[in-house]
């Protein structure tokens, strides 16, 4: 569904490429996770998807079509992206905000159609924020707001969903419920691309992990293969061990103290 091939991105004035030959595939009905340290190029990939940053070389295909052939609107109908930051300049109700997800489908002079209303209602239900529909956006908690943003993206009726650091600032419960939602959406057929810092959670929910380091792919594959102590230690430049989580059976990273405490 979303496929980067040998993608290279250079920011003007930067000595090294921010993304340097990354290939990754995010297929339908799977959760594909991009992980890596700060500055490893994760968010740059999202910026390329958004069209905010051009590729210096390599390609990006959406459903087999070159990204450059797609208008911004056409992209928004195919891929719903939840960027890291997004905040209405002026508060509105949750219902009104989620309805903005219909913008890629709406005409300049057209009123909301029954189809739009259905899509918004489905998105509100799917993300479990039905009961918030008349609440102002500036009165939501961090966890509610993230779910409402995902609802906005789902209202776009796209077949792929990109979440850029969706659980920053969320507590364990809200974090888990958001990951569960992402996994459920993938099970229902969506291609889900998850950009995250949460290695251990990602290892439990992702079908494929792509580990970036300095703009290159350091490891990619099933979580069991990517979650190797040796690789992660060198990528994060910190001593750590990978254990098997006794409760879930998934690989889990335990960073170590440098000196005995």
């Amino acid at each position, binding site marked *: 569904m979303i496929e980067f091939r040998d993608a290279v991105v250079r920011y003007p004035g930067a000595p090294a490429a921010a993304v340097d030959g990354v290939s990754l595939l995010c297929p339908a009905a799977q959760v594909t996770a991009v992980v890596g340290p700060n500055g490893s190029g994760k968010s740059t990939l999202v*910026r390329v998807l*958004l*069209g*905010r940053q051009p590729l210096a070389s390599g390609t990006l295909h959406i459903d087999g079509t070159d990204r450059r052939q797609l*208008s*911004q*609107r*056409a*992209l*928004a*109908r195919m891929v*719903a*992206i*939840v*960027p*890291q*930051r*997004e*905040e*209405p*300049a*002026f*508060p*509105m*109700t949750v219902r*009104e905000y989620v309805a*903005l*997800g219909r*913008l*890629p489908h*709406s005409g*300049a*002079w057209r009123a909301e159609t029954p189809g739009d209303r259905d899509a918004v209602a489905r998105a509100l239900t799917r993300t479990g924020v039905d009961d918030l529909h*008349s*609440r*102002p956006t*500036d009165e939501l908690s961090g966890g509610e707001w993230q779910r409402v943003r995902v609802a906005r*993206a789902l209202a*776009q009726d796209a077949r792929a969903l990109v979440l850029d650091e969706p659980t920053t600032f969320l507590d364990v419960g809200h974090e888990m419920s958001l990951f569960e939602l992402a996994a459920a959406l993938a099970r229902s057929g969506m291609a889900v691309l998850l950009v995250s810092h949460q290695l251990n959670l990602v290892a439990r929910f992702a079908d494929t992990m792509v580990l970036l380091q300095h703009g290159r792919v350091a490891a990619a594959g099933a979580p069991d293969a990517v979650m190797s102590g040796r690789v992660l230690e060198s990528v994060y430049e910190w001593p750590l061990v990978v254990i098997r989580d006794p409760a879930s059976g998934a690989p889990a990273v335990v960073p170590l103290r440098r000196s005995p405490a």
Partner: protein
Amino acid sequence: MIAHRSWHWPAAIAVLFAVAALGIAFGTVRLGLREVIGGAAGTGDPLHVTIVQALRGPRVLLAALVGAGLAMSGASLQGVLRNGLAEPYLLGVSGGAAVGAVLAYAAGLSGYALLALAAFAGSVTAVGATVLAARAAGHGARGDPRTLLMAGVVVGAFANAAIMIALANAPGNTVRSALWWMMGSASDATWATGAALAATLAVAGGALVAGARDIDALALGDEAAAALGVDVDRAAPRIYLLASLVAAATVAAVGLVGFVGLIVPHLVRAAGIRRHRALLVAAAIVGATLVIAADTVARVALPPAELPLGAVTAILGVPFFLAQLRRFRA
């Protein structure tokens, strides 16, 4: 949070027409409703026909268009710049217009049309300089909204300096006349001025309403707007320029009328309208009403003197705005 009700729209339009009728009725010669209708139809007393058709009619129309334009311009800029303090003159419209008018006076030009054209050209030049400067400084064609605001402030400062230099080198009355002209008055209104402004508003204001979905998305931030299918680098500068064009046309027609473009969008949002297509249309109706009312007050408050229109809008609007402040969330 208030939800707007369907009766708000007909009520707002009814108030607009009522205030317009009052604007035609009130003045040095006070007309009754029948005299207003007779004057409009051309069947009444010839004096009343002249007052309605040649004097107050065009004046009320011009005030309405100015209010509508400023309110739409302010609502658009507040949305795109994501800033509740944004107003129509922000990107250099006022300073540029003042420089244009002062230069025209200094060059010995006079006459309403020439001054209007000079002010308009000054505005457009200043806005162009602001947008280009922000673009050169920022990332991408949109630039950072904060960079743009800063560029607007700096271009405004430059315009002030230019006016002061002109002040130092020109005969005092030239500059005074130019600045007086800028203070805002609809007293020279003609049907031709109204038609010119109406045409500009129909084109540029219509384009703003047609692009209102882009403003909805841009008000969430650039990345979210891009995610919702907006070509940010094209849409944002287009809205800056259209909104400033509308503002410049109002300045060319009547000079500076502060406050309307700042406050009316907040009033309309507080009434529960948040999507920009409806917001722009509602702001136009409310802005028109407000400026007709202010212009009527400017004519009748201290006869025979006329008060500067911009001062009246602020004097009437500020107390109301402060009283309602807790209802506005920017």
